């Protein structure tokens, strides 16, 4: 059971209100990102610290980048054709939050 599975379970739960879903998403996100082993590298950047507060993930590190990277309302995985987890709709995803950080860094 990955964080993505938990995320999708909340997403599909029609009995939850929007605010209840947001709270659950925040919990799932926090657990996923805080479990990441540090440091790790994204391209030539070294990620040295991750902090989570509410819907925000703060990422800091070393290298030429406008630190800190702050991710608001971010997911816990990234859709990719080579992903390791399959959603109910058939799409495949990487379940590692590192992929989210990498995508955000590369978008800057």
């Amino acid at each position, binding site marked *: 059971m990955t964080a993505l599975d938990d995320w999708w379970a909340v997403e599909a739960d029609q009995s939850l209100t929007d605010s209840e879903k947001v709270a659950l998403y925040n919990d799932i996100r926090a657990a996923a990102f805080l479990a990441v082993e540090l440091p790790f590298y994204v391209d030539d950047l070294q990620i040295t610290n991750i902090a989570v507060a509410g819907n925000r993930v703060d990422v800091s590190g070393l290298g030429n980048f406008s630190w800190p990277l702050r991710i608001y309302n971010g997911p816990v995985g990234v859709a990719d054709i080579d992903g390791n987890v399959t959603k109910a709709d058939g799409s495949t995803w990487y379940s590692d939050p590192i992929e989210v950080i990498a995508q955000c860094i590369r*978008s800057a």
Partner: protein
Amino acid sequence: MATSVIYGSTMRGQNIQYGSVDPAVTAATIYGNLTSFLTTKVTRTRFTNNTGSTTNPTATFSATPANGSALIAVILRTADNTTTTLSGWTQLSNAGAGGVRQAAVFWKRAGASEPTVVTATNATAAAWNMTIIEYDGWARYADPVSISASATVASTTSISVPGTGMMAGVCAIVNGSGTWTTATLSTTTGSNASLTQFAATTLANCSEIVGYNNSEDALCTYTLGTARATNRLVVGWPHNTTSAVAPFGTFAGITPSTASLAGQIGIEFDTSTIPLANTVSAATLTLKAAGSSLLWPSTATSEIFSINSTAIAKTASNTRTVWRTPTEIAALTKVATRAAGSAWVASTAYAWTSEAAFISNINQGSTTRLLVGTSEQRTGSLAGSQQVYNISDTAADHFLTIVHDRLVTIPTVTATATPSISRIPSFPRTIAASATATAALSRIPSFARTIAAAVTATPSISRITSFARTIAASAAAVPAIVATYQPFSVQLPRILRLAGRSTITLVTQSTLRLLGRSTLKLPKE
């Protein structure tokens, strides 16, 4: 400097096409009449209601209907059968129940000299209620359709007359046996439809339903004071509807010739976390492709526009908050583009190319709202083939990347002093953030120090002169200077040598005293 990645909070894709009900009106037709479709909308010109108990129901318009307008006739009978006909009109819906009641609707396009009198025919006489209505605006270009076909409803006090997917239309109920005490039409909770009653008896009711701002669903219910079996129907003009179609995502663009998909999309990003005082140096929009059946324009460019002042609600709001005419789009600020023919792979995120204006349209401290469309929708032109693309219908799959910096202004401290200003070495002075030294500074002439005309220092710099100056203990008289007095220092022997040819002159009443250990040497003769 910081980088904020903000995922979407709300999105809504709106289909310019004619909703879930297909009245064979293409996007090209709508596009050619956008003003009527989006601005004028369906407008009611006039209506007339009449009742009777003859064989042939009839009603008369108060004036000749305008050429090209759409006419609707609603005929409710409290008995009889389903044989009501209206020559020259097209039947939209018609149903009876066991010979006890009948609800029928017809429509026609008004001609150049349209008669004002409308008369239906039937085989038998019975009580009837007939309403005729003239519609203009968008109704001039699109034919009305049956939204909810005439049908029998079992005895109840609550009769639903769904207007889902309807801009505006007519609903009616009729009861054939017995009467109801009251019949009240109201919108379902949360709906914002406007209602107009055309006819109200204890046997029949005919009303108009207009969706919120002529663009939204109108879910209405008749509530009867007495439970009765009825027949009910709804006809009208569908509105545009969502362009999100599972599992294909949400569509933007135009399909000109078929009743398929085309739309514009609004997306909101909560940029309240970007402080107003910060300077945004870069902004990039990343949109994720839909999961399947991908489409990307071959000739049109994807264009993103700022619509910061327009809230984009997910449901139950004016669809016009998303759909804009070419003129309206041309007045917006374009903030990002993506070229025709670009790669578009399922479930893949792509960064759009930012325009220079993007950074100034990040709504710092508030919500940034973007309209997702195409160059065709800005110019009003239509290619022969569909110029459409589909993105994920999940708002949180799309994100804004914003690089921003806290602008801190460090005051420049300039101390201006004239060259002759002296500083007292032992007197520490702290120069304020901005200080201009004036003559009020202490001056000691004997320790003149020259300060450069302009000195820049940080506010906290303290000046402490750390050196002391000592006056030399001896002063030598230069030749030709006559030492007229040598001060006496206690216990210090002092020698006054007068070189050859020197003269000591003792003026009148002067005394030369030679005290202990003093010597007066006079040159030898």
